[in-house]
């Protein structure tokens, strides 16, 4: 098929002038009979030589825009084409001024920045209330309507907590604009609305100073520098920046999402009410952290854990899950009792807590036997029975207990995988066996301790005295 151009007709829509061509999509104005809205068509760049993320981002854009309630802060989606045959999105053409126009004229007056920033923060809040995080906030993705309302465009990298996150698989290489990207997003977190607040801080910084806070990184290492290196305070670059504005900006740019504003609405409030901004050391800071603090931050960064994402508005908190790893080898009465003791204490402390009894064994297909217990099914049942025998003395109602026989060549990896995918809160596991030379073969327990995504308690029976 020829590339679409002015005059091409797609599903009854007639393409007009091409108004944008980017790495992911081309955008055309639509001509012909008009409805109540001026329209544009966005056609993703697909086919040989184009990146796979273009397809996914098209799917995401359609999903998220289709789910948003009609409102002033994003273009209305009017129609879309089938992804397998004629992918396109038809949406409202927003006739507004791009935030980029102001950025190019920066530094601009604080009052103007406060007006633009507050409108943008309100638009973000509108999005966040619908459980959507934009994740690609940059000056070219923000328009202002003549009445001053901010409009967010391009939801191709957004995250909607009601839909599967199709971009999660692209995590190895953080997708989005690296210039404004939050530290947690650089580490692969895609569900935190406070990531947009961070990007907003970066944009405000640029409007105040005419430069971006962390340069334009081209490698992952440069991108991650923002985890420990603080930006030059805006007042050090533009001396007449008011303290309240610097306070707001640096508050948005905190490394840990929990230290930022909790919602974009709070940012909007502060920008609209400069006299009300609670000034701290951030507002009066006049230079970056010294070498010693920088070194200290750098050391801390090595164990930086991004904040957990706030629950979406519709989430109902699931009960905490404790995984008890039961070895497939011969039962060890003392260890089993010690594991039960530890489990009892956790269960007593939290009546929502559930226990997942898990064992990991080599894949059953490798077994062929004469006797019933040597067949795949027979052996599976034997393992289940063993887990049940372990759990029976706990006397827990059955809805608080589950049993899982994981089949894997690598038992430790299977346990870790299980813990990750089921949001396990804690793992109880026996110690590495004494007979194994620990340095040569660290064993399942050691690997689980090292790599599990949650707390791991190594349970050791008391030696008999």
């Amino acid at each position, binding site marked *: 098929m020829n590339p679409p151009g002015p005059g091409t007709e797609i599903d009854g829509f007639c393409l007009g002038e091409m108004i944008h061509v980017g790495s992911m999509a081309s955008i055309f104005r639509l001509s012909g009979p008009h409805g109540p809205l001026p329209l544009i068509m966005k056609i993703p760049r697909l086919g040989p030589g184009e990146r796979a993320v273009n397809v996914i981002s098209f799917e995401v854009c359609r999903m998220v825009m289709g789910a948003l309630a009609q409102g002033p802060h994003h273009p209305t989606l009017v129609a879309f084409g089938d992804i397998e045959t004629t992918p396109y999105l038809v949406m409202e053409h927003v006739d507004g001024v791009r935030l980029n126009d102001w950025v190019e004229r920066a530094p601009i007056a604080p009052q103007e920045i406060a007006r633009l920033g507050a409108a943008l923060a309100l638009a973000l809040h509108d999005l966040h209330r619908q459980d959507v995080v934009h994740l690609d906030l940059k000056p070219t993705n923000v328009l202002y309507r003549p009445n001053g309302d901010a409009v967010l465009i391009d939801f191709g990298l957004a995250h909607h907590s009601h839909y*599967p996150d199709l971009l999660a*698989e692209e995590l190895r290489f953080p997708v989005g604009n690296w210039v404004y990207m939050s530290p947690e997003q650089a580490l692969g977190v895609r569900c935190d609305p406070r990531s947009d607040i961070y990007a907003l801080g970066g944009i405000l910084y640029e409007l105040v100073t005419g430069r971006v806070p962390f340069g334009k990184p081209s490698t992952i290492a440069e991108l991650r520098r923002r985890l420990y290196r603080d930006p030059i305070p805006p007042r050090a670059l533009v001396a007449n920046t008011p303290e309240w504005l610097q306070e707001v900006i640096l508050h948005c740019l905190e490394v840990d999402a929990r230290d930022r504003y909790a919602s974009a609405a709070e940012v909007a409030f502060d920008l609209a009410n400069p006299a009300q901004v609670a000034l701290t050391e951030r507002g009066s800071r006049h230079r970056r952290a010294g070498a010693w603090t920088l070194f200290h931050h750098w050391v801390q960064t090595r164990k930086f854990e991004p904040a957990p994402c706030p629950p979406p508005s519709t989430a109902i908190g699931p*009960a905490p899950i404790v995984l008890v790893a039961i070895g497939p080898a011969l039962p060890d009465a003392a260890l089993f009792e010690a594991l039960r003791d530890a489990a009892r204490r956790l269960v007593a402390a939290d009546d929502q807590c559930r226990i997942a009894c898990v064992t990991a064994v080599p894949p059953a297909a490798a077994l062929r036997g004469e006797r019933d217990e040597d067949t795949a*099914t027979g052996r599976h049942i034997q393992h289940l029975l063993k887990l049940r025998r372990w759990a029976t003395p706990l006397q827990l109602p059955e809805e608080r207990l589950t049993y899982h026989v994981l089949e894997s060549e690598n038992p430790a990896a*299977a346990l870790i995988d299980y813990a990750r995918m089921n949001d396990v809160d804690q793992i109880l596991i026996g110690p590495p066996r004494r007979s194994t030379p620990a340095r040569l073969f660290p064993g399942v327990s050691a690997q689980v301790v090292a790599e599990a995504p949650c707390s791991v308690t190594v349970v050791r029976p008391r030696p008999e005295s």
Partner: protein
Amino acid sequence: MKLALFADIHSNLEAITACLAHAQALGADRYAFLGDLVGYGADPLAVLDIIEQYAADGAVVVLGNHDAAAVGRPADPLNASAQAAIAWTQAQLGDRQRAFLTALPLTVRDGNTLFVHASAAAPERSIYVTGPAEAERSIRAGNAVYIFCGHVHEPKLYYLGADGRPMPFRPVSGTPIPIGKHRQWLAIVGSAGQPRDRINKACYAIADLERSRLTFFRVPYDHDSAAQKIRAAGLPERLARRLERGA
């Protein structure tokens, strides 16, 4: 074409009646019952009457491990209360119901869609698809664009990403999710008759395969009556409480 999907009904007449009414109101015109029609609950005969009627009209019905146990072919050891319920159920079933359950297939394939109770990797072993590793095995073995299953009582959707690894997603009731044919999907529709995620509403889903959309639903139903019947039948108390608490 709207395909309504029900799993793990477990003799819960109130739940399946509410789900079927909900699906009909939304224009469902095809039906699939993904196993574990009986067990746990107190209305095996009434539930089977309904499903036999749908089966006669062309609905897909596959065998679950509780159904197999009810006709004397247990696949897995059941826990004590499940076993008690199966023993009770066996005494209720007549020849017609036994013949219906005995004749059920483990899987049904329809074009690019596979219906199975548990994992497609080994339908007869009733493996729980509790994580991406099991989901991946089921997707690989199933060799279908869409796998619809049950067994695990909480609704979940797995989709195969570009790197070939399934990603789990916990669906939100009533939100239509685009499920494009260019990927592979495994949907656990959740339990109609015994939900276990602390929400005492029945789970089911509607797939619109022409428009590539899947919507999971939570339907409120009269769980008090269902629980009362379990008590009246002399079945274990915990089975009744489970319906009341949804856990």
